[in-house]
């Protein structure tokens, strides 16, 4: 063995001078590192404590850490080739931990890994394999960044090039030691080359995005614990993220963890349609703010580093937060910035004011008289919920007042009647508050949540089924701040449970059966992790095709975040981009599970003219089977 495989040569003996030189250089390097890292750590620790952070239960944290950091699962899954290259570099760094320690120890004569001994030798081979993989990985990443130049990575950065070079040199100097004769001058030279490279690398870490090496394992571990978890406002002076002093430790930690990979930007519907909003720049803007003003400043956050206009272009689709490999939670930040603008009256927008005034005085976000909802209920003989039925069918603003929303409700009602499930609708409903919650108006949201919770208690509602993922999310999660909401589920979950009892059209002879492209709503997919149930229901009416961006990568319809109530958008229309993608699958039907998606695509598909796919909610697809069955 010792004859066939080379062993890495290590310098055996260092002079006192060399020991002192190394110690001095190491001290300088460590000082250089701390000089930059210390203040950053300080800024994070000086930030306000997070009011709703709970360290326990720890199981989820450990699981996410192991999955996302140790296994690099998210890094690899969302960008496979690049992700593997990065994973190799990361795993190499981990494997090299002992090598590096040993290298430092040998200069002082206390090396603990003997390359000739069994343990030492196997360990060095093990690290050697990773060194090869790492060198290949970092070379590949270098090529991508400097030759392919994907726009997600932003402008070319010489720091990245330097870091890539240093890593490459570290690996090469390690591997070269396998091929030099023991005792020769080259061995010592290689040792010094390797250590000097390391000492140069160390202080560079906090100066670049490579700070994520230190921070991101903590960032992933210390996340808020749930997707789009919006913190509560504490006390009478808390209005959201207004100034530096409102930034919490988690936000500051996340701002410094950004690795600038641009995955958030790549999947952002606003950024993809020519708008100013760039989730990466939002996070880096906070970093810039913290570097200049610090975490106790009164200077407004929306000013030099982040623009109010950009913040209000967000549909809260969550693609950014979902994609982030280092655990940055963009949604609480964006909504926090909106809160800061809206709760203080700094946001002046005609449509926004109209929405807030409509909900201050009235019952629904559309500003329509509730008589219209009463008429709809009466005309269609919908049963009124009186506490005896099993389900309360929550219509929501769209289901109550929007023509398409009403069609969806009536289709669902037909199916529920067919299934023999008892249900009723509330005599009076107020908006769940989703648009104002996402726009950051806590005053109106609190009023709506409290009024609704009281009404539901009075009406003895135990279970809600709703056609709108926004209502489902808001009722189940956001109302929790003001009371205990009843059980609530989306109609896709409800219908999927009864899937076997619903007749499928596929068993019938229909030669002109259209394929169905199902569009995953943001608030059902990424927010609620429900992807299969709506497909199970849609499949009752035909064969499914997947859009290029589907499931957790589904591209937003553009209505969320309260945006469907605001004015015209700049750039390309998000709904049109997505409609084109869905139509491009060749499907004859676009299937939706959200009345907002439905409304957005109605216009977008109509504009495509003849030959555009039909637009149907999954409730309508399920009801189709009833029609042909003759029982509906």
């Amino acid at each position: 063995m010792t004859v066939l495989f080379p062993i890495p040569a290590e310098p055996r003996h260092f002079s006192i001078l060399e020991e002192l030189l190394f110690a001095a250089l190491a001290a300088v390097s460590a000082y250089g590192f701390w000089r930059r890292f210390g203040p950053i750590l300080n800024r994070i620790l000086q930030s306000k404590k997070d009011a709703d952070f709970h360290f326990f239960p720890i199981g989820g944290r450990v699981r996410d850490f192991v999955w996302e950091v140790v296994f690099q699962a998210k890094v690899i899954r969302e960008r496979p080739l690049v992700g593997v290259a990065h994973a190799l570099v990361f795993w190499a760094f981990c494997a090299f931990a002992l090598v590096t320690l040993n290298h430092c120890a040998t200069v002082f004569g206390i090396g603990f890994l003997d390359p000739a001994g069994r343990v030492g030798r196997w360990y060095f081979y093990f690290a050697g394999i990773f060194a090869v993989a790492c060198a290949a990985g970092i070379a590949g990443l270098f090529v991508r960044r400097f030759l392919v130049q994907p726009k997600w990575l932003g402008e070319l950065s010489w720091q990245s090039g330097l870091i890539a070079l240093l890593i490459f040199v570290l690996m090469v100097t390690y591997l070269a030691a396998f091929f030099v004769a023991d005792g020769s001058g080259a061995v010592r030279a290689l040792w010094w080359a390797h250590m000097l490279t390391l000492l140069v690398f160390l202080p560079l870490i906090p100066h670049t995005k490579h700070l994520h090496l230190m921070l991101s394992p903590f960032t992933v571990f210390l996340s808020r614990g749930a997707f789009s978890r919006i913190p509560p406002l504490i006390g009478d002076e808390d209005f959201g993220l207004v100034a530096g002093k409102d930034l919490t430790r988690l936000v500051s930690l996340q701002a410094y963890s950004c690795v600038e990979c641009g995955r958030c930007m790549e999947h952002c519907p606003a950024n993809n349609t020519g708008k100013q909003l760039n989730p990466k720049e939002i996070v880096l803007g906070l970093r810039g703010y913290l570097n200049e003003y610090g975490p106790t400043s009164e200077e407004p956050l929306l000013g030099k580093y982040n623009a109010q206009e950009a913040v209000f272009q967000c549909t809260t689709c969550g693609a950014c937060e979902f994609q982030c490999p280092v655990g940055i939670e963009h949604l609480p930040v964006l909504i926090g910035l909106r809160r800061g603008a809206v709760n203080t009256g700094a946001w002046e927008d005609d449509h926004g004011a109209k929405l807030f005034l409509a909900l201050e005085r009235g019952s629904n976000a559309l500003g329509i008289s509730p008589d219209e909802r009463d008429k709809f209920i009466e005309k269609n003989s919908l049963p009124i919920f009186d506490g005896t039925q099993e389900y309360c069918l929550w219509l929501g603003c769209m289901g109550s007042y929007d023509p398409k929303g009403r069609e969806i409700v009536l289709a669902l009602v037909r199916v529920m009647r067919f299934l023999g499930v008892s249900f009723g609708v509330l005599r009076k409903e107020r908006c769940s508050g989703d648009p104002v919650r996402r726009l950051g108006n806590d005053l109106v949201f609190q009023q709506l949540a409290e009024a609704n919770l009281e009404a539901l208690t009075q009406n003895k509602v135990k279970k809600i089924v709703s056609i709108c993922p926004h209502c489902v999310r808001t009722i189940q999660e956001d109302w929790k701040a003001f009371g205990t909401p009843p059980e609530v589920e989306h109609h896709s979950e409800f219908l999927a449970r009864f899937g076997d009892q619903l007749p499928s059209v596929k068993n019938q002879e229909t030669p002109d059966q259209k394929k169905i492209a199902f569009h995953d709503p943001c608030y059902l997919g990424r927010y609620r992790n429900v992807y299969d149930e709506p497909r199970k229901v849609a499949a009752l009416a035909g064969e499914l095709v997947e859009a290029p961006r589907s499931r957790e990568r589904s591209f937003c319809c553009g209505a969320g975040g309260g945006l469907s109530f605001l004015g015209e958008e700049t750039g390309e229309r998000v709904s049109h981009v997505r409609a084109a993608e869905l139509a491009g699958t060749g499907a004859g039907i676009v299937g939706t599970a959200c009345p907002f998606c439905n409304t957005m695509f109605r216009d977008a598909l109509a504009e495509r003219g003849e030959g555009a796919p039909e637009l149907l909610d999954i409730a309508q697809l399920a009801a189709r089977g009833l029609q042909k069955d003759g029982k509906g």
Partner: protein
Amino acid sequence: MKIIVAIKQVPDRDAPVRIAAGSKWIEERELQFAMNEPDAYALEEALELKEKHGGEVIVISAGPERVGTTIREALAKGADRAIHIVCEDLEARDALGVARLLAAAIKQENPDLVLTGLQSEDLGLGQTGVILAELLAMPHSTLILHVEKIDSGIKVKRELEEGWFQSIEMPLPAVLTMQSGGNKLRYATLMGIKRAKTKETRLVAAGDLGAGAASAVVLERIALPRKEKSTQILPGSPKDAAAALVEKLKTEARVL
């Protein structure tokens, strides 16, 4: 500038109206209430004047305890303090009686400008503001959309018929009744509501104001309008039928 805004709390526009027993008033028990919309525009104009020229905006409203929520909303939107004339029988008073209450409280404040909506959304009399001006012995102007401060007092933009407007220069102090739609209403903010908690609302009992309670006008009875459906088929050629239709729309339906 010291500006007083007189605000009325009225039943919500979408509220289902039911006549109370006795047919003297509507059943209030299940109603939601809100700020009278023209008064909201009056408040908005007052706040804009304060933002431009400094001074104080005081909100005054008469009515039972529930009026407190509307007063708080006005404070949340930016008014500095409020006067609540506590009165349990507002609906039994006529416009003169209400104006007397307001005038008695307002006189003590010595304001530069008094703003109020041109009419209320429930009774729609359009009189209270005008009577108030007389009682305060101040000049007044009605249906105002915009107020501008000038050296000699104020210049106001007044709405006339058929899309015409009138521009008037007036001295201060003065009373103006405001039309809706002149400016954009601001929304109530969380910050506003929190600050409102620290602002003063002075309670005054209606009886303490020494305003005579006897009404000149007594509301005898209120009733819901009768809704009837009737269908007329117009005979003849399309030309004749069209002519007949126009005649009916002019003289019977009175929409042309």
